[in-house]
């Protein structure tokens, strides 16, 4: 098929001043260095979806919804009348909030003990439970 409007953007290929001289030696290549004001590096900026995605937007419910259970200090699910157990969090936490909590802050709106219990619950999350992928993505190295 005719590539009617074919125009190849070949980038800045240097002019090849080859061809060899009488002795068969290839002569030197010319390096085109451009100009002071012409940048020669482009950094890949992620599309918005990537920048905004992952940690910031993922959510972890504590505990999974529809459970009706409470959470003890070790992060285990227990019946609501267990002494010392904490009620389910009324709101889900973002990956960013959990990330900061893992570094020492309390989860928003919680006391020290409650935050610790919730974090223990989160640490115990298994594949298949709501919030696991979010928590796992916090653990993955960024590179």
């Amino acid at each position, binding site marked *: 098929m005719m590539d009617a409007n074919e125009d190849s953007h070949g980038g800045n290929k240097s002019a090849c001043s080859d061809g060899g001289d009488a002795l068969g030696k290839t002569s030197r290549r010319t390096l*085109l260095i451009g*100009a002071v004001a012409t*940048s020669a*590096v482009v950094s890949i900026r992620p599309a918005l979806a990537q920048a905004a995605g992952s940690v910031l937007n993922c959510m972890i419910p504590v505990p999974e919804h529809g459970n009706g259970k409470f959470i003890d200090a070790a992060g285990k699910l227990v019946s609501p009348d267990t002494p010392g157990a904490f009620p389910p969090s009324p709101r889900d936490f973002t990956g960013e909030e959990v990330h900061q909590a893992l570094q020492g802050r309390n989860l928003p709106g919680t006391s020290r003990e409650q935050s610790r219990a919730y974090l223990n619950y989160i640490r115990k999350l298994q594949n298949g439970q709501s919030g696991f992928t979010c928590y796992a993505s916090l653990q993955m190295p960024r590179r």
Partner: protein
Amino acid sequence: MLGPRNMVAARYAALPAAALKRVQVGGLEAIYHLPSGITHLLAEPVPDLLDALARLGPGRFADAAEVLQLIADRFDIEGDDPAEPHEAVLAERLAELAALGLIAISPDK
């Protein structure tokens, strides 16, 4: 130590080879900078500048004039604007590379 011009030319060195991953992609070079996880695309003459510093050895610093010398040993140099000294053009490219963390810059002495 300051010389009479009050300005010391910046000096640059290659990063350890393991810090960069370089792949030719069409007419440009794609480069993955492991420490930052950022990908850049490089056009001529930048890959050749990286090569020149890499041949010097990681941690061996050179200023723009020295880099020009290294390059001129291998290539005929041609700039877009005859009024711009080649050293000035390379100085700009090297500063750009350093700002992105793709080469090391020597701290002022």
